[in-house]
């Protein structure tokens, strides 16, 4: 792996020449380490995600000269979506002025959380990571903004209920969860089991081992169970194979809903027509038809200052999500600059900025993303924000939003989060903050 990583790292470095800003932090620059996976089995997802962050940071520098005059610098570290390598990246880059990291892996997130407090580095996990870390009293340095797997699972059940004609109609319905056999894939199980007891549907859990190239046994069981709905909690090749297998057994694609990491162009395009009608969760709009995204293309790529070959990802689901990561970090930085009267913010100040993140509908409009996302507002106790979820559907060419924003079952999820966070606090001798 070392040789491969080195070779590809060199290739990636060559490809990225001209776009990665100098990594040495000067007095008037804000440093961001980017944990990327441009190589390995998950590279098709990792590349647009990493580009989304880098392109936005680049855009802010080119368009606005940075954030309030502070230039943004960033440095990529290749994790290959490998937890061990991710931790190595963190250890190597944490001393370079890092105030916030985007681990882009639930496994890496779990490893970094215990260090965040000591290192004064915030962990921003946008749409992944450890759900109970939403409780800011126990996890002051971790942010699950704007929503979590548990919220998403409850939103899916609400959506299915609505499709069936009401939550009362869920009783007796069969729902199958096909999940990546990892910490990530198992995240929704607790929520779905709780709601199963509450609402009376029958949940079947089917695990798929990494990488998910071969799923025949799983789909034989689906044939036998004949579920009314399938929830897909996959990643990488597992998604494409699942979509194809679903089509092969004749399952109705509009009754199969993927987690937001199973709902990108990379998951559906290679399957051809098989994915038509397939649905997936999301927390932001798809496509590039927004003033900001058009401007990024113009300012960064049309001016020849973008990542080589990167323009094709602009507006894709994973690119948009990468951009959201960068927006959260820069908006938090902006808030901290204002609050503390500084230019370059330190770890404590960045954490304050993230905890007080407040992106209103007006601010989304100012950014050039009107209607792209719901307002986001964190508090001391709630690092998840508001947590609304959308359902999108693939029409064979593009993703279309087919639901209103679905508010998760906060009354169910929040107590779960607090209970789990309290257990973590007890186990690790943490005294929760008073909020």
């Amino acid at each position, binding site marked *: 792996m070392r040789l491969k990583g080195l070779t590809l790292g060199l290739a990636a470095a060559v490809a990225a020449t001209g776009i990665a800003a100098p990594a040495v932090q000067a007095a008037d620059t804000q440093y961001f380490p980017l944990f990327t996976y441009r190589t390995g089995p998950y590279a098709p997802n990792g590349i647009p995600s990493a580009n989304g962050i880098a392109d936005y940071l680049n855009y802010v520098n080119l368009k606005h000269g940075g954030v309030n005059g502070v230039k943004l610098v960033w440095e990529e570290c290749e994790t290959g979506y490998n937890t061990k390598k991710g931790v190595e990246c963190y250890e190597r880059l944490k001393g370079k002025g890092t105030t916030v990291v985007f681990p882009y892996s639930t496994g890496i997130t779990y490893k970094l959380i215990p260090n965040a407090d000591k290192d004064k580095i915030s962990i921003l996990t946008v749409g992944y990571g450890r759900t109970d870390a939403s409780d800011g009293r126990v996890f002051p340095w971790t942010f699950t903004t704007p929503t979590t797997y548990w919220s998403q699972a409850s939103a899916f059940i609400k959506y299915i209920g609505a499709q069936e004609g009401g939550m009362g109609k869920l009783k007796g319905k069969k729902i199958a969860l096909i999940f990546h056999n990892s910490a990530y894939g198992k995240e929704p199980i607790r929520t779905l089991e709780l709601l199963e007891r509450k609402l009376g549907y029958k949940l079947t859990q*089917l*695990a798929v*081992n990494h990488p998910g190239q*071969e799923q025949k*046994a799983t789909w034989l069981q689906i044939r036998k169970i004949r579920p009314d709905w399938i929830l897909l909690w996959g990643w990488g090749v597992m998604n494409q*194979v699942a979509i194809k297998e679903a089509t092969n057994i004749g399952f109705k694609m509009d009754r199969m809903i993927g987690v937001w990491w199973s709902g990108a162009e990379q998951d559906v395009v290679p399957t051809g027509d098989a994915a038509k009608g397939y649905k997936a969760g999301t927390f932001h709009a798809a496509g590039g038809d927004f003033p900001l995204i058009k401007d990024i293309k113009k300012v960064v790529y049309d001016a020849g200052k973008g990542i080589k070959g990167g323009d094709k990802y602009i507006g894709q689901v994973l690119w948009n999500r990468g951009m959201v990561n960068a927006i959260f970090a820069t908006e938090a930085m902006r808030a901290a600059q204002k609050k503390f009267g500084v230019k370059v913010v330190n770890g404590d100040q960045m954490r304050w900025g993230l905890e007080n993140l407040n992106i209103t509908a007006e601010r989304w409009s100012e950014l050039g993303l009107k209607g792209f996302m719901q307002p986001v507002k964190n508090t001391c106790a709630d690092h998840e924000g508001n947590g609304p979820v959308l359902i999108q559907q693939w029409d064979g060419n593009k993703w279309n939003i087919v639901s209103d924003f679905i508010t998760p079952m906060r009354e169910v999820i929040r107590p779960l989060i607090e209970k789990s966070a309290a257990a973590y606090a007890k186990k690790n001798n943490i005294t929760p903050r008073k909020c």
Partner: protein
Amino acid sequence: MGEFWEFVLAPVLIFESWRFGMEVAISGLLAGVMYSLVALGFVLIYKASGMFNFAQGVLVLFAALNLAGFIGLGVPIPLAILLTIGIMILFAIVVEYLILRHLVNQEQIILFMATIGLAFFLSAFGETIWGSDVKKLDVGIPQGRFEPFGIQIQYLELTAGAVAAALVTVLAIFFSKTKIGRALRAVADDHQAALSVGINLRTIWIIVWAVSGIVALVAGTMWGAKSGVQFSLSEIALKALPVLILGGFESIPGAIIGGLIIGLGEKLAEVGWGPYVGGAIEDWFAYILAMVFLVFRPQGLFGEKIIERV
């Protein structure tokens, strides 16, 4: 029947519904054929050089990447296949020229280490040329399913079965009826002895690596048609290992029979026992099954028992 026996007999009880049982069995056998296609590449190189080719999985990926890449560039499918075959032959020549000829009569572990290096280089090289995006691979293999007697069978898997049968027939004739085939077997037995009777070792190695590359192309095409062509295709080699352990590293029929046993065994285990233990057991169950065979026949079902005087 008590719960204990229900658990123990779960893979058999699947056949209480004979249609479902047959579906599991047929799917398992056809999945096994897909593993065999990958295993065949390992067998060919091991037969001819006594080398366990760690790079075989990457070879599957590399072949499929080239094919999908050419098709993506608008090259007609038959020409794209020919171009890819040409690349695999060229690759065999380069491997012989740069690596193998320098390692004649070296320890097996040295040859093995060389293939590890080759694997990492090849995957990076393929990604550098063709990129990391998932590529759709459509060479006209029929998709969808048909249902004789209510038993669902997929066209893709049936096609893979037919292709594997044709491939094995051709390879069996090649090895037993041609001069080159016999020379291949001689080289496998002893490099130095083969050289002493005038067999051109370098030519033999080029031929066997080229054939192995073409077999990898067939395997990559089948798997790529199923999942798209992407880096994880190289990990399919892990599914071929238990097949090799079970069938023997140097037997072409062994690769096929081993694939069928592993495919059938793991599917019955997953569908039967999986629900009792949280599922996702098929990967490790395949290795357990292979190890059970290994205990009783260390050389595999069809492998040659080698007795060396010391």
